């Protein structure tokens, strides 16, 4: 009977949930299976969108918006930037396996984890007191409710997250600098400058070939002058 309770919901809700579940699980499997990191990042976007769908289905509208903007918008773009900049977008050797039976053991562990989580929940899925922080249902809307809680009860934690973000920015800058304070791409810039200099010298030597004779005559005149002096 418990398994059939999905059909106790209205058709629209059931369809939304099934659609979201298919999108989420398909994307998650795509992240794990795909060889190319770019494909994995795009599959991650699919999963994040699926989670946003289920957030909307559960009346968490603000979180759904943040999910799309922050996760799918910012974080995956950051991933793609790193993939493109590092040039690691080539296929991985999935068959190489330093540890014996690593994949089999990992899949077994995953299945056991899922099964035990579901088995634990079978008796009773939710326990605890209801509406401790504040009721979800009420006259005010989701964004207003969340804002009220964030700026009253969780104000200190909210301010702490701003400190955390500043620390993350400083850490990112510190990590991307070199210890001796030179530019990250100093080697690259030096290489480009050397190549440019080589091209410039080659061009200069070609020009000098054309005017070589006249220069030689000038030089000989100068040397004559030096001898006489």
């Amino acid at each position, binding site marked *: 009977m418990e398994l059939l309770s999905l059909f*106790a919901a*209205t058709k629209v809700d*059931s369809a*939304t*949930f099934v659609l979201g*579940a298919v999108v*989420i*699980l398909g994307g*998650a*499997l795509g*992240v*794990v299976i795909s060889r190319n*990191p770019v494909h*994995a990042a795009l599959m991650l976007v699919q999963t*994040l969108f699926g989670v946003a769908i289920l957030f909307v*289905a*559960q*009346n968490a509208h*603000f*979180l759904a918006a*943040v999910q799309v903007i922050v*996760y799918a918008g910012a*974080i995956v773009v*950051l*991933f793609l930037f*790193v*993939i493109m900049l*590092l040039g*690691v977008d080539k296929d*991985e050797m999935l068959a*190489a396996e*330093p540890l014996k039976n690593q994949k089999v*053991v*990992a*899949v077994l*562990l*995953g299945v056991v*984890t*899922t099964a035990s*989580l579901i088995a634990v*929940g079978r008796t009773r*899925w*939710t326990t605890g*007191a*209801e*509406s*401790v*922080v504040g009721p*979800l*249902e009420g006259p005010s809307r989701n964004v207003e409710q*969340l804002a009220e809680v*964030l700026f009253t*009860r*969780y104000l200190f*934690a909210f301010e702490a997250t701003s400190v955390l973000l500043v*620390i*993350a920015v400083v*850490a990112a800058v510190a*990590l*991307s600098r070199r210890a001796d304070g030179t530019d990250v791409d100093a080697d690259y810039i030096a290489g480009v400058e050397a190549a440019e200099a080589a091209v410039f010298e080659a061009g200069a030597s070609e020009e000098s070939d054309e005017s070589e004779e006249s220069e030689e005559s000038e030089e000989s005149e100068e040397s004559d002058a030096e001898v006489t002096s």
Partner: protein
Amino acid sequence: MTVEVHWYLALAAALFSIGAIGLLTRKNVLIMFMCVELMLNAVNLTFVSFARELNDIGGQAIVFFVMVVAAAEVVVGLGVIVAIFRRRSAGATADDLHILKG
């Protein structure tokens, strides 16, 4: 009537396990990092489901903080990954970090 909460919780458990399997099997550091994101999202989905079931806005507030921490974690983690790839060749995997064993 909306879908019962245990469907959402089972889905989140499956998503968490897929992320864990990916973290254990893949060797590309970037994809391992994406699998951590999958696991974080599974936990977020669980929080929102419990918030709905218990009629409590606190679950959604926690998800907000988890998202902020995840964003900070991605920034620092990708910085570390870039540092790893700079020391090693571009095709470095997690196996190339075995020096950390000491």
